[in-house]
């Protein structure tokens, strides 16, 4: 099932500071996401995952190289690209109810009633059918992030970028949310790019794992995870292919932890 790449990063370069203080962050990074794929980007901490996400979303231009979204160079946030940010408590609008937060993301010309019905459907899909009129601060952390995910789906974008969406929720909630995101991605045929520091999460959720090197960051390797679309918290995590992929990814990441000089 080889479809056209929906997002392409080509030789992305980005540095912060100037002169002696110049710190290269991205050092010629290339990869692509195809339609219908679930891609995870994983890398050692401090490798510039957030910088990469900002460049991919068109929120911060790279110094060199280019990002192409549906074939067009990304210079500003393009239509059809949505982001779910890591910190749901800072990303949801506290003055809007769950329903209003989701409808707010629908910028199309549909009527108010159409938007509300669609938002209600999405909130039901994330299991918040009875919290439509609750404010974010009346919801638990996991519930808030589910509102944020519903909002991400609401714009009916061609690609959903997920920036460490589960970093701030507890372990049990995280497992449930991983399955929820996978289920939603399938149900709404949503192409997803997940940025995470969690190797297990990357391998469990993705069709393809892009492993980043430490800073200055390149793509260390890409690993296909041949586990099919349906995953299970117990069976998948015991599957030989899962263990093999995890071994590969973990090996690459841990290699970067070695001290540079002895």
């Amino acid at each position: 099932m080889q479809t056209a790449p929906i997002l392409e990063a080509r030789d992305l370069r980005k540095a912060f500071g100037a002169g002696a203080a110049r710190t290269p962050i991205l050092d010629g990074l290339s990869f692509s996401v195809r339609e219908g794929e679930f891609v995870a980007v994983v890398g050692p901490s401090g490798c510039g995952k957030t910088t990469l996400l900002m460049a991919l979303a068109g929120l911060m231009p790279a110094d060199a190289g280019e990002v192409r979204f549906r074939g067009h160079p990304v210079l500003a946030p393009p239509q059809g690209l949505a982001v779910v940010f890591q910190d749901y408590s800072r990303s949801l609008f506290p003055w809007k109810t769950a329903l209003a937060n989701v409808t707010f993301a629908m910028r199309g010309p549909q009527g108010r009633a159409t938007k509300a019905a669609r938002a209600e459907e999405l909130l039901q899909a994330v299991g918040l059918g009875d919290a439509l009129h609750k404010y974010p601060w009346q919801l638990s952390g996991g519930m808030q992030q589910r509102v944020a995910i519903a909002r991400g789906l609401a714009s009916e974008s061609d690609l959903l970028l997920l920036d460490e969406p589960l970093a701030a929720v507890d372990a049990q909630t995280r497992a449930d949310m991983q399955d929820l995101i996978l289920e939603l991605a399938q149900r709404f045929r949503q192409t997803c790019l997940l940025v995470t520091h969690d190797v297990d999460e990357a391998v469990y959720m993705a069709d393809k794992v892009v492993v980043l090197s430490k800073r200055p960051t390149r793509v260390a390797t890409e690993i296909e995870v041949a586990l099919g679309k349906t995953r299970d918290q117990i069976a998948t995590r015991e599957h030989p292919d899962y263990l093999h992929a995890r071994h590969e990814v973990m090996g690459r990441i841990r290699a970067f932890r070695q001290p540079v000089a002895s």
Partner: protein
Amino acid sequence: MTAPLRLRGLVSLLFVLLVWEGISRLGIVPARYFPGLTEIFAGAVEMIRNGELPAAELMTLGRAIAGLVLATLIGIALAVLSDASPFFERGFRTITGLVQPIPPAAIVPLAIFGFGLGLKLYIFIIVMVTIWGPYLNGVTALRAVPVEQILNGRMMRMTPAQIMWHIKLPAAMPQIFAGIRYAAAVSLIAVVVSEMIAGRDGIGYLLVRKSFSIRIPETYALMFVTMINGVLLAALVNLGRRVLTGWHVKQMGYPA
């Protein structure tokens, strides 16, 4: 939660009145200069009967409210401008530092030369001393809007003006209202002081006239009226706060 809080306010008021009456009756201070509540009340009734008090009250409250609304709008507009343009913010910061410490009484003579004794005078003075609460709180609050909320707006391809109107201002509103509440008290003080100096009408003018003719109960009655005005204006601000930032009032769980 709200009912006991309101009751507590009433209890505090009763306590103040009781202490007042106690001091008056015990004769600690000469009764002539510290009349009892009944005398003060009679003074107020007399001023209501001859029409002095309602006319003055209408003037003073009208000026305070008009000035506060205008000052709030100007303050928020300047805060938005400061947020959009760091250049403007830096320049205006110096002006803020220079103008903010001027007491209202010091502006009055200058303002009378410029604006005469009409409504313009009061509006000018109130705005000069009242915009700082909404303005300074607005600048701080607009700057403190979580970057994720703004990035969400940018991902929804909103223009900077749309982000300001739909995201930054609603996010900043609770803190701006804290500034407006402070401004409401300042606005009342500015009006009464200006009326005392400009000397033509209003509660401030009446206060000066009654005290100069040594009408002690009336003078105290007018002082109580200024207190009541403070409560009225605070209630008005709270109403606006409930309408515009009801979510925050609910989140805090009590009317702050």
